[in-house]
């Protein structure tokens, strides 16, 4: 799913979360718009905090991605990502990612990574709606 070879399909973000969360989200993006190549999904299952951080750093270095999407603010991946931001202020972290967030992000090709991340986060928040009979 993740074709890092072509420039237009170059990864712009890492997605990491619990269980198969990232694989599921990246797969969903691919099904909807075929742009999974913009994302690199990582799992943190069975990893120490040090290994999670090393895994994210390696993916950032390999792909040139500057945005890290994580599932929960309290996740080990979020803490690891915040450590990376401390060392590299050009990296942006968005926690609480959902499908609407990622879809907005992969289409924001003209924006800088930080601008794309902020826009995507707003779209993700707005996608949470409650529907009930009045």
């Amino acid at each position, binding site marked *: 799913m993740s074709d890092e070879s072509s420039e237009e399909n170059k990864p712009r973000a890492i997605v990491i979360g619990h269980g198969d969360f990232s694989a599921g989200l990246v797969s969903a993006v691919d099904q909807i718009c075929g742009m999974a190549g913009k994302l690199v999904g990582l799992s943190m299952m069975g990893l120490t905090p040090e290994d999670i951080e090393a895994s994210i750093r390696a993916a950032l270095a390999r792909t040139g991605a500057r945005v890290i999407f994580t599932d929960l603010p309290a996740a*080990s991946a979020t803490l690891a990502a915040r450590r990376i931001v401390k060392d590299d202020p050009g990296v942006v972290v968005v926690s609480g990612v959902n499908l609407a967030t990622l879809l907005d992000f992969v289409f924001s090709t003209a924006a800088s990574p930080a601008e794309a991340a902020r826009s995507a986060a707003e779209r993700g928040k707005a996608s949470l709606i409650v529907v009930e009979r009045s």
Partner: protein
Amino acid sequence: MGIHLYRIDDRLIHGQVVVGWGQPLNIRFLILVDDLVASSDWEKELYRMAVPPEMEIYFANVETAIRDHTRYAGDPRPGILIAGDIDTMNRLVKGVKAIGSVNLGGIHHRAGRAEKLRYIFLTPDEELQLKMLEGAGVEVTAQDVPSSRARPLAEVLEGDSK
């Protein structure tokens, strides 16, 4: 109320602790016992930002955790005490006789450790430390989340593959 769980978890504050245990036990405070974290304002802020607003977090090194344990244990709210490794919990137990049980929540793979459970990897020395902890009268079980079964130390050391 007071401390409901004494947990060894190398990820310290994370989803399993804050949500997995925090929600069903209605946890309202966490005590993170770690000498390194307690000595760093940046590390403390990092973990503080991972805790939801309804939870309070205290940071302590082993020495201050022993000193303040009576206060934590007497707190009317339910709480969890977390240490990142076996050695830290062992030192705490030596100074606090009231600790009757310890939960192994996550000790992940690194060089020299062998897999015991999906989320528990131990060196021979760590196995020995846990046996000594149990020998001192502390019940040691492994349980990553509340919905899984608490597995006694003997079963943990036997491992899933045997």
